[in-house]
């Protein structure tokens, strides 16, 4: 056992002295976890407000109030300007769209139920239709807000109704406006009557087109506390991949440079030599896992739901990928051949397995292919212990798959090394 430990220490010492190996094993995973954590955190705060230019061609109190409302809503970042500048800015993609408040906006605001409606024009790049649709919805929302506000202010409503009745009076009772005059008369009567006491459950928020109530419905399991709960398991995977490639190439280097043969001339069995390699790889993967999860827990608010299961997940992932390392080392006779073959297998395995982007944002067919990747099961095991709240029986599936994969790869790798 002392010889196996000495072999492992030698390999770890060499790993720490190969700058590229050290970087991809210990630094790169942290960069991936932190960087992507921040990227996904930004997305989780909701869509960014649209940046638009508003052209107020009406310049009435109502139009200015509307512009102010848009600017203070938080839905939009509003700059004001003239139409020509606005068109230029949209054409240059400096703004998502421009909004023109047409002349007569103020007058139309004073007569909601007849005459020309308030007119707003949207100018946008046809290639950005989604943003234009979103902008249309936001404008409609704020226009409806004016309507709601009117109903909730009886004095303002009566003022508007009185004005409208005066304007319609010259048309007489036989004109097409007669039904509208009757409606406005009834509305005036309604607005002039004392308010009804609130009925049960009606609340006192005034008139609303629809009341939407949010009811918290906690899931059976809590989701990830933040994006780092997703990116740190991915970062650990990147570190494991770095270890796998470093040790696989290191093993081939030993063959190419004659030190593997030299070890076989020493009083060591082949099993001892390979065990030393495996121990070094397990040790470095374990060190990486401890370091990365410690950083995540200490600085990025990762809360582990079960430490024993996390240890189990880490152990299974380590063993699995040590077997994979042995297989990769047996794929070629030179460092270049092994590096090429190793990355050719690892990249798709990592991509489909969710090491590059979370599996849940992949299309179904990619998720299905990912089932054949040990990366998927390793990440699932990590997540199961960190935030998915797996039970030991739920942890069994990813762990068994990882161990099985590792055993098969180890056997193939040892055979390949023997033949080489």
């Amino acid at each position, binding site marked *: 056992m002392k*010889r196996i430990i000495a*072999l492992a220490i030698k390999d770890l010492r060499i790993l720490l002295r190969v700058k590229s190996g050290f970087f991809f094993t210990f630094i790169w995973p942290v960069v991936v976890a932190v960087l992507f954590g921040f990227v996904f955190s930004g997305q989780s705060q909701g869509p960014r407000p649209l940046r638009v230019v508003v052209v107020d061609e009406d310049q009435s109190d109502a139009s200015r109030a509307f512009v102010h409302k848009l600017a203070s809503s938080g839905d939009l970042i509003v700059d004001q300007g003239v139409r020509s500048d606005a068109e230029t800015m949209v054409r240059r993609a400096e703004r998502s769209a421009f909004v023109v408040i047409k002349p007569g906006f103020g007058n139309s605001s004073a007569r909601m139920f007849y005459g020309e409606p308030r007119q707003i024009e949207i100018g946008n790049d046809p290639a950005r239709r989604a943003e234009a649709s979103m902008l249309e919805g936001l404008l409609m929302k704020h226009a409806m807000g004016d309507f709601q506000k009117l109903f909730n202010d009886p004095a303002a409503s009566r003022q508007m109704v009185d004005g409208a009745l005066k304007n319609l009076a010259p048309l007489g009772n036989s004109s097409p406006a007669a039904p509208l005059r009757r409606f406005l008369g009834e509305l005036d009567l309604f607005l002039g009557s004392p308010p009804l006491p609130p009925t049960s459950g009606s609340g006192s928020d005034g008139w609303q087109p629809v009341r939407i109530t949010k009811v918290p419905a906690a899931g059976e399991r809590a989701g990830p506390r933040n994006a780092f709960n997703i990116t740190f398991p991915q970062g650990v995977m990147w570190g494991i991949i770095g270890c796998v490639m470093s040790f696989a190439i290191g093993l081939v280097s030993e063959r190419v*440079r004659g030190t593997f043969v*030299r070890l076989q001339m020493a*009083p060591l069995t082949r099993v001892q030599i390979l065990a030393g390699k495996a121990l070094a790889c397990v040790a470095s993967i374990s060190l990486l896992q401890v370091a990365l999860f410690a950083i995540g827990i200490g600085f990025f608010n990762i809360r582990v739901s079960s430490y024993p299961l996390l240890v189990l997940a880490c152990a299974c992932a380590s063993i699995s990928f040590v077997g994979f390392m042995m297989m990769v080392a047996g794929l070629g006779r030179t460092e270049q051949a092994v590096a090429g073959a190793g990355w050719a297998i690892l990249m798709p395995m990592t991509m489909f397995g969710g090491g590059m982007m979370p599996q849940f944002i992949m299309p179904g067919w990619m998720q299905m292919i990912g089932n054949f990747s040990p990366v998927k099961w390793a990440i699932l095991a990590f997540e199961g212990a960190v935030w998915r709240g797996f039970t030991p029986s739920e942890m069994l599936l990813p762990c068994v798959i990882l161990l099985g994969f590792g055993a098969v790869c180890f056997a193939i790798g040892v055979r390949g090394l023997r033949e080489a």
Partner: protein
Amino acid sequence: MLTFEHVRKSYGTTVAVDDLSLTVRRGEVLGLLGPNGAGKSTAVNLAVGLLAPDAGRVLIDGVGDPRSPRVRARLGVAPQALALYELLSGVENLRFFGEMYGLAGTALRNRVAWSLEFVGLTERARDRVAEYSGGMKRRLNLASALVHDPELILLDEPTVGVDPQSRNQIFENILDLRRQGGTLIYTTHYMEEAARLCDRVAIVDKGRLLALGTVDELLRTHGARPTLVAQTEHGERRIETDDPLAELNRLAAIGTVAAFQMERPTLEQVFLQLTGRSLRD
């Protein structure tokens, strides 16, 4: 100490070692002399258990098979291809190889220090091997074979590609080991090295043992006779003779001998005599 008994080893259709029978006595330096591809390295690999013979057997002290790790622990090997970890320092390499042979603690420290001193690398012990010259790497390769104080040392072409200074250092090291009673197998294709360092020389070619004996025995048996080269008034005279003094007296009696010298036969001539080819062909 080491015995080959009718050993045969082939790689596909190529016979690397063919019916080799040979015994290395305790305390002697045995040279395996032959051109490249003669089967010297294969013989070394058979001796250290790296290869299994197709036929015959290899024994250490008459009983142990070198394929057993326990038996291999008694051997020290400096392979022809440098087998060192370039990212480790000289002392780290030796410490590692010492540990592979079961050394630990004070014994390990002492043997590592002795090995470094022996090959003259104490001052560069902490430098990474990648920073060593070719000759220094060869010396460290030799030290890695000696660090565990083996009973039998196998040196496979230990002076290939080294500068004259390191070559002389390695020669001195081997002569020191010889004086200390070490048992060595020394493979080379340089007949001067074999003649200078070895007690006995085995001449091999195409996997077969052609001749075995001390250098004098080989020269006497397979080499030409010594040649007397004399400058007379009739020009240079070359006379093969077993009694050069008598020939010199005979020449002096019939004329004037301005100068003379003796040319002894070489192992090169022995190899030529045995194979019809030069050692460097």
